[in-house]
């Protein structure tokens, strides 16, 4: 019995050795996925992602300047007070509250801190209360982590950058709760306070409670505040594109089925050219992909209240571009593969990898910077970015130009490469 079992095991391994598709799925795919997720969550390729935050100082006080300076030096933040200077162009003006809000709405940064006028007068308070002017934190709730991180880091930065203000407020609390200081005690404390960098007299805070931190924060979701179900479009696009890629791969695979059955030979012996055949297959695949995406977004609209019907032009443009790109990708996979089994294995490997890197499985904005850049090599990333622009940021169709250009452009290139590989089927 053991010998027979050994023979069965041996046959299994012999067959596996000759089945490249099964080998890839058994060994390469797990390693690839392990590497991708290790890179995303393990900090490889760029370390922990820094949160981009725009900083606007409307106060111009010594406290606010010290706070801005500390924010700019904070290693966990990528803070900036003005847009990047482009080569050969003059330094752009600093962000204002309005321009920072626009930038957050466009997705240039997930958060912006607006330090209001009067902040320097009452920068901090312990616990609730105080008449502090709250710092405004404008954020994009499509990145739910960024706003919370910025809020937390801001408290830490205040503690390290405004110790004098904190000491003064502390003394005021002490004085109130202890029934007052003797003149000698007050003189001694003021002498000590004068040696603290930001120490100076201020009145005790009073007024409505804004928050319970050191600095008062007024958080506002500037992108999703009027949206009912914020992340549905993101998930519809992310999951949709991944399954579109599988569909396109299967549709392209019919070429290999036809090659194996002899139908391809018969078709090409009729009046159908290889280019016509490929274009026809691709058109079918693109229409199928469009139908799938439409169904997915319709479902999102009916069940999850996704606002599809007011975003129809952008949806149509993005769906057309995405469907075209994934259809050509399917054609390429089929034309470079020699058998259906090989195509299935290679497709699974590539599609799952692209989906992981491109944000279909895990949002790209939560990945390390290097991984985010790698993600731009995938259709998923461009499609998700485009749909996010349409449904989340309410951007006009013209703003989809980069995504549409990349998706259509790469679709054309992949189709041409597929056509080149398909020459092997044209004649023996």
């Amino acid at each position: 019995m053991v010998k027979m079992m050994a023979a069965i095991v041996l046959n299994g391994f012999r067959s596996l050795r000759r089945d490249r598709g099964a080998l890839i799925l058994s060994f390469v795919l797990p390693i690839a996925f392990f590497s991708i997720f290790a890179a995303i969550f393990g900090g490889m390729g760029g370390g922990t992602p820094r949160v981009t935050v725009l900083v606007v100082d409307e106060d111009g006080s010594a406290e606010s300047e010290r706070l801005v300076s500390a924010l700019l030096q904070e290693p966990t933040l990528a803070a900036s007070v003005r847009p990047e200077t482009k080569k050969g162009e003059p330094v752009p003006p600093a962000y204002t509250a309005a321009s920072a809000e626009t930038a957050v709405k466009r997705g240039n940064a997930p958060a912006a801190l607006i330090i209001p006028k009067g902040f320097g007068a009452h920068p901090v308070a312990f616990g609730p209360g105080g008449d502090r002017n709250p710092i405004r934190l404008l954020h994009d709730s499509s990145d739910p982590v960024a706003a919370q991180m910025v809020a937390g880091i801001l408290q830490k930065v205040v503690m390290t950058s405004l110790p004098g203000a904190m000491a003064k407020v502390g003394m005021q609390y002490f004085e109130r709760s202890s029934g007052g200081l003797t003149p000698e005690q007050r003189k001694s404390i003021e002498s000590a306070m004068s040696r603290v960098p930001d120490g100076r007299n201020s009145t005790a805070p009073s007024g409505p409670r804004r928050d319970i931190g050191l600095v008062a924060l007024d958080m506002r979701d500037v992108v999703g505040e009027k949206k009912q179900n914020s992340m549905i479009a993101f998930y519809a696009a992310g999951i949709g594109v991944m399954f579109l890629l599988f569909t396109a791969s299967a549709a392209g695979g019919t070429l290999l089925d036809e090659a194996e059955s002899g139908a391809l030979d018969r078709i090409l012996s009729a009046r159908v050219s290889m280019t016509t055949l490929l274009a026809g297959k691709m058109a079918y695949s693109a229409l199928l992909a469009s139908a799938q995406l439409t169904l997915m977004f319709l479902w999102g609209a009916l069940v999850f209240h996704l606002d599809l019907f007011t975003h129809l032009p952008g949806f149509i443009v993005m769906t057309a571009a995405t469907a075209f790109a994934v259809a050509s990708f399917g054609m390429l996979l089929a034309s470079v593969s020699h058998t259906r089994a090989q195509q299935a294995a290679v497709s699974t490997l590539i599609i799952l990898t692209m989906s992981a890197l491109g944000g279909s499985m895990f949002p790209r904005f939560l990945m390390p910077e290097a991984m985010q850049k790698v993600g731009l090599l995938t259709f998923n990333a461009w499609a998700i970015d485009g749909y996010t622009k349409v449904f989340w940021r309410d951007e006009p169709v013209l703003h989809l130009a980069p995504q549409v250009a990349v998706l259509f452009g790469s679709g054309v290139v992949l189709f041409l490469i597929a056509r080149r590989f398909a020459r092997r089927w044209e004649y023996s």
Partner: protein
Amino acid sequence: MYVYHRCMASAAPAIPLRIDSAVKRFGDLTAVSGVSLDVRERACLGLLGPNGAGKSTLIRSIAGRVRLDSGSIRVFGQPAGSAAARAELGWVPQELALYPLLTCRENLEAFGRYQGLRGKALREGIAWCLEWAALADRAGATVKTLSGGMRRRLNMAAGLVHRPRLVLLDEPTVGVDPQSRNRIFEMVEELRSQGTTVIYTTHYMEEAERLCDTIAIVDHGNVIAQGTKEELVERSFGRHSDVLMHFASSVENAPAWAAAQGGTMQEGAEGVAHFAVAQPTDIARLLDAAGRDGLEVIDVVLRRPNLESVFLQLTGRDLRQ
């Protein structure tokens, strides 16, 4: 029966098929080695040869699916593979080249459209094909629900929906039962009666004998003989008969002995020699000689020469090897 009135091309002087010194190599293998062949209108040419003889490569070359290394093939005067040649040609490949999830009618419609048919011409072509292949009552059935014989017939019909004047049938009876095979023979005969020129490849001698008026024997990529069955037999055997002599396995010098007696050993069949004799009584002479030389003969067969005998005579191999 439904009669489809196809539009005949204006009287074309060109013959249906002219192959001139066709050569096709795949690496070191020469699949077609200088074949020259003419097929006249309304003829049925049987390409007879064993597996690997080069029949299918030749057929695929005619269909424009193989590019020759040298030589030329013309279909009704047009280069093989050209649009004009494709329009005149119907190719039925050996494989079941169909869409398994489509119905009979949908398959015919698809291949008709690939041939450029539209509207009435397409509808008439489909109707004719369904009738011809005796599938009219199964028109709405998907391919995967058809029997093997029905699939074969549909496979044939899919190559003829545009009513070509020259039809290439590449082993159309592979894997079908005798009843279905007979139905396929009737379909081919019906085609011929309507004036279609047919090229029929097979390694079944009886199919070639029944259906074809001209036979080309193909071996190692060459047409080694061509003519009617009678001509081929006459050329190979004259008025002689065919004698097969089976020696005991212990006989080692059979090849030399058979050669000395004017015979040949049959390749792939151990201890079988093959002789052409003028009279049946010549068997006695061969048996005497074998006995005299100490060869143990275990079986002797006398038969009238047929295509298989011709093939054996010309190649030393059995047709089905």
